[in-house]
């Protein structure tokens, strides 16, 4: 058996916190995935090694794609397009293909990804592993609802998994954070679009009640909906927001000259406009700069609703992708994103969280509120019907750890949970309470990975895997 070439590297997530060293294997061909998996299994059965996990573009904020002392498989090399059916929009691609690549190639042909998060720089494998959601969750659900099939390399063999053939394994892998196997390719159902533009309605909401009411009554009329919240506004203005909602524009919806130029109307050429060249020593974000930015952002939005404005996909879905290395502005200690969901009836929890963050002066600029539709059957899949709020927070505030522990309790009490793709600090017992179906996940994992080869730092931290001698499971 060949042992794939490994090189030791220090890895961290997008938040640039808690780096750990791992042996990186570049999976330049699917066969190398099989070899790396076989080597990791042989190590584990011999009581050596520290397992294996796949890594895509490293956009998980925390430690999901890290495996300290073990093997991290760089899956971005699995970037082939295997099969395309443009009549029905069904494509089969390598798991390392990014959503950006899919957009560049297929939007001009009239097909868009079914779900995109706030960045298009994620891989298909990562999108499945985190069962990502987008602004259309209330209409279209999360990513894995649009996956027809995938190839999963597990320690016990290679599976072609569909929701029908092996529903347990399929849904454990959806949101399973890479701990059921390495996805090497997937078949996706794309959605038809006539142009690369959206018609967007933008309006201000004066406070949290206002924005929630608008979303409850109006979201169903739009495919995409999201609110940006000023988390520093307090008192009467707490939760003041800018609500942007829209739908894919048809060619006839666009103004001239786009309407008369179908090729241009479908063009998708993303550009990185600027780049943060280095990590500023103290970071650039403090209550003062963030306050000014929030003020600017709110007042930049039109006072009266602005309807059916054409926005290009890049600006509407991925505004931050235009700035290279934007995660550096949080300074050398990095940052984290706190994203939770609570059921519809627990909207007050959102208010409490915003109040608490403002109270301790934890400044955040990226604050996104969204209403989820029904979740899917994945035991570790994050979305469930209700409200989800995401806030970016710089690490360094003295009380950050304790405040977020308190918020975890609030969220848990409200019957909510934290998104693992964003998490970098959840405690194991809190995680287990938030995801009551975790045992169903662990049962599936134990079947395909009886020796516990699939491991990650996230898994170690929240108790999904271990390097100690196997603990007896009851």
């Amino acid at each position: 058996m060949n042992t794939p070439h490994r090189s030791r590297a220090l890895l961290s997530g997008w938040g640039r916190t808690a780096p750990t060293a791992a042996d990186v294997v570049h999976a330049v061909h699917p066969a190398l995935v099989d070899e790396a998996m076989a080597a990791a299994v042989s190590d584990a059965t011999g009581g050596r090694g520290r397992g294996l996990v796949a890594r895509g573009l490293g956009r998980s904020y925390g430690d999901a794609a890290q495996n300290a002392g073990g093997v991290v498989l760089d899956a971005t090399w699995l970037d082939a397009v295997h099969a395309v059916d443009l009549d029905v929009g069904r494509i089969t691609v390598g798991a390392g293909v990014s959503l950006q690549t899919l957009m560049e190639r297929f939007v001009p042909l009239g097909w868009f990804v079914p779900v995109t998060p706030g960045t298009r720089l994620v891989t298909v494998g990562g999108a499945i592993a985190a069962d990502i959601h987008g602004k259309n969750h209330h209409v279209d659900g999360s990513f894995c609802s649009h996956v027809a099939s995938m190839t999963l390399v597990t320690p016990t063999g290679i599976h072609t998994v569909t929701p029908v053939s092996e529903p347990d394994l399929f849904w454990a892998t959806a949101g399973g954070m890479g701990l059921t196997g390495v996805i090497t390719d997937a078949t996706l159902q794309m959605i038809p679009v006539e142009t690369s533009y959206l018609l967007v309605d933008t309006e201000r909401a004066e406070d949290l009640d206002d924005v929630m009411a608008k979303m409850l009554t109006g979201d169903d009329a739009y495919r995409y909906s999201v609110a940006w919240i000023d988390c520093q506004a307090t008192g009467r203005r707490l939760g003041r927001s800018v609500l942007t909602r829209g739908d894919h524009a048809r060619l006839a919806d666009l103004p001239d000259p786009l309407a008369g130029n179908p090729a241009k109307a479908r063009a998708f050429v993303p550009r990185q406009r600027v780049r943060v060249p280095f990590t500023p020593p103290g970071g650039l974000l403090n209550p003062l700069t963030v306050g000014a930015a929030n003020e600017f952002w709110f007042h930049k939005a039109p006072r009266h609703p602005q309807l059916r404005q054409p926005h290009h996909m890049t600006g509407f879905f991925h505004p931050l992708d235009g700035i290279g290395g934007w995660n550096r502005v949080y300074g050398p200690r990095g940052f984290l994103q706190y994203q939770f969901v609570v059921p519809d009836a627990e909207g007050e929890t959102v208010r409490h969280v915003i109040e608490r963050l403002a109270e301790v002066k934890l400044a955040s600029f990226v604050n996104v509120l969204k209403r989820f539709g029904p979740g899917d059957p994945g035991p570790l899949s994050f979305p469930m019907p209700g409200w989800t709020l995401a806030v970016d927070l710089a690490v360094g505030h003295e009380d950050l750890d304790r405040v977020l522990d308190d918020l975890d309790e609030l969220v848990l009490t409200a019957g909510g949970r934290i998104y693992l793709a964003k998490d970098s600090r959840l405690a194991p017992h809190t995680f287990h309470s938030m995801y009551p179906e975790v045992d169903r996940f662990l049962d599936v994992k134990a079947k395909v990975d009886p020796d516990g080869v699939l491991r990650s730092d996230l898994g170690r931290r929240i108790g999904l895997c271990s390097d100690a001698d196997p603990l007896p499971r009851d």
Partner: protein
Amino acid sequence: MIDATGRPQSVLVLGGASELARAIVAGLVPGRCRTVVLAGRPSERLEAAAEEARTQGADVVEIVAFDATDLAGTPGVIDAVFDRFGDIDLVLAAAGALGDQADLESDPTAAAELITTNFTGLATALLAAAARMRAQGHGRLVVLSSVAGERARKANFIYGSTKSGLDAFAQGLGDSLVGSGVSVTIVRPGFVVGRMTEGMDPAPFATTPEAVAAAVIGGIESGAEVVYEPPVLRWVFAVMRQLPRAVWRRMPG
């Protein structure tokens, strides 16, 4: 694992009965630290430290027999801890003795024993722990040095020189570990009012075990390479190191 806010989930304390170590563990357990391994010479104080960690809420608290002067046995002790408990996120090197300078000057063998405990023994344990942490790809070593090591004083140069040596060792070890996922935090407290200094007159800028513990936890969370407590000592000793010898040796105490 150490989380994004710098909190470890497991700690191995070398010198588990030490007053400073107990204060530090008391600060770690309410965060995320659920596994506490206390290594030291079996004693009632070590048992009490273990009981304290249990009361604070740690899930796994174990005592491991460790004698810093048993140089041949030390690597085995460290390996056994890593083998048994899996990942250790934090190793706290807190073993050490102050000794009485006058007694030690008249008893070179006793002085050698103190030097072995404070320097050679800890260096041995730290090398063994660093190797395991390098293999696990993550972790932090916290080394309790002292401002007494910044410049040896005639009143306590035996203790001071052990801390000098340990401090220099820890700096080099930290540099050698860059890129491995493992890092070293050196702690240089001033005069700590407590059991170790009982009966002594406090030096200027004296501090307490609780204040040192808070500074150490702050340093662990921020990933500091060097922590002074109180922080002003960083500047005080920057000056002290420059004093002419003739002035320095007249320093009282």
